[in-house]
């Protein structure tokens, strides 16, 4: 008995230690980026364009580019995701097609981001002729995010009690009207949570925009949907591997990394807070 209790003690401590390792990894990542990036952050860094061969100046065009491309991503991924989820949760009957759709969604979620990049290049840039542009990049990221928004929206719809649907249908209200007025409104906070998480991921992605519209350097902001654009993640990639004077621009790279993770993690944080608020409310 003694020895098995000792085993338990050691075992549990190994598990605790593993958790600590994870926290340590996260801590190191955040500490390194924040401590070395904070020094270059100032008003000019945020609001100016890069200057002197990107060895000076700021990252404003990259911030704006990331914002625009994420908006396009949302315009694609949110409605399509919600509609698909409405089909799956409200209309679909059990059967082969439904199973196939679910399998396709799970597989889409596992397709590598660079493959989405290839797909976007072939479809949007070449076949549809949108060229390398913010539109092509946004559409590519939108398709990549679609499985996330579908899954999140379906979860949210599933959480709406069936008694709301049946109560409404029993009043002689049509199915679509019931969904629109007595199901969807209660799913919106949940849909929002998952959607924000998906968009945060899209905003930080690089591989899908490499060949679909991201530009090395542009001194101006994107003017239209067919413009190329600078983006924070791509800018970080350039500044840390492709620049001719990497050592000199390293602080700028850190600053870019900091802005990027602040942006992405604050989106994550909003989603997490929204979700825990939701859980409390539903209790």
């Amino acid at each position, binding site marked *: 008995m003694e020895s098995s209790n000792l085993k338990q003690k050691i075992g549990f401590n190994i598990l605790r230690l593993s958790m600590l390792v994870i926290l340590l990894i996260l801590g190191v990542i955040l500490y390194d980026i924040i401590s070395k990036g904070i020094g270059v952050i100032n008003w000019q860094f945020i609001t100016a364009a890069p200057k002197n061969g990107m060895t000076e100046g700021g990252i404003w065009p990259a911030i704006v580019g990331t914002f625009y491309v994420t908006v396009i991503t949302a315009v694609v991924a949110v409605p399509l995701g919600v509609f698909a989820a409405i089909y799956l949760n409200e209309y679909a009957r059990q059967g082969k097609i439904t199973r196939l759709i679910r399998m396709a969604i799970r597989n889409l979620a596992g397709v590598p981001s660079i493959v989405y990049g290839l797909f976007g290049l072939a479809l949007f840039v070449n076949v549809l002729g949108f060229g390398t542009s913010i539109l092509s990049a946004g559409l590519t990221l939108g398709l990549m995010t679609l499985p996330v928004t579908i899954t999140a929206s379906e979860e949210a719809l599933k959480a709406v009690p069936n008694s709301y649907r049946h109560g409404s249908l029993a009043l*002689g209200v049509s199915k679509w009207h019931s969904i629109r007025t007595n199901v969807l409104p209660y799913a919106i906070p949940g849909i929002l949570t998952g959607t924000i998480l998906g968009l945060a991921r899209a905003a930080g992605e690089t591989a899908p925009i490499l060949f679909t519209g991201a530009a090395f350097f542009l001194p101006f902001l994107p003017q239209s949907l067919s413009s190329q654009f600078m983006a924070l993640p791509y800018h970080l990639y350039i500044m840390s591997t492709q620049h001719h004077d990497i050592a000199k621009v390293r602080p700028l790279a850190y600053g870019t990394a900091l802005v990027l993770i602040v942006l992405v993690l604050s989106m994550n944080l909003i989603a997490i807070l929204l979700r825990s608020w939701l859980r409390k409310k539903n209790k």
Partner: protein
Amino acid sequence: MTNSTHKIIVEDLDFYYDDFQALEKVSLKAPANQVTALIGPSGCGKSTFLRTLNRMNDLIEGTQVEGKVLIDNEDIYQDDLDVVSLRKRVGMVFQDPNPFPKSIYDNVAYGPKAHGIKDKDKLDDIVEKSLKRAALWDEVHDRLDKSAIGISGGQQQRLCIARALAVNPDVILMDEPTSALDPVATAKIEELVEELKENYTIIIVTHSMQQAARISDYTAFFLTGEIVEAGPTEKIFERPEDQRTEDYITGRFG
């Protein structure tokens, strides 16, 4: 009795969940403006039967109906029948009170709004009338804008009745409406049912024989998916013809 006094006529109704036959050759005539009680042990098919009358069973996959259900002499399972307008005429109150997470006012106004009534005065009028008919007006008239989730279970159930009344049905189906309520709330609902029959035809599923005896005019006894016996409540309870009915109402099983 002639057809004209029978609101609902069911003939040889079979009902299947996939391979399982839940109802077998059920026939029943429910008189207009009376309360018909459906009694029987759990799983006897009485709730399933109730849900064939407004086709709520359509929502379950793999179900199948054979036979005829006539409401006002119209077959509600005919091909071109519009289920949505059927449910407008045949309201339903569920076992567990299911108010929507909206205000009391919006719960009652939900149906009429969905059916295209936009005029505020008209809606106000419908809400007030419905709540009065459901004997809830006096208790909630000063907090119509409060959430319906905050009122008691008995009030919630009466709200659901008001919600059903607001779309102006002529039949109301009730699926064990008091099983989740305490005795005081139950008594109120029973009282209400007796008042409502003046204007509506009511079919009520109940687990309690006392309740059936108290409030119904007509009773049908279900057992394993069949109607064993149906007739005026008094007769069923005092002079049942079938031995099984007698066994059930005297509490020998079920």
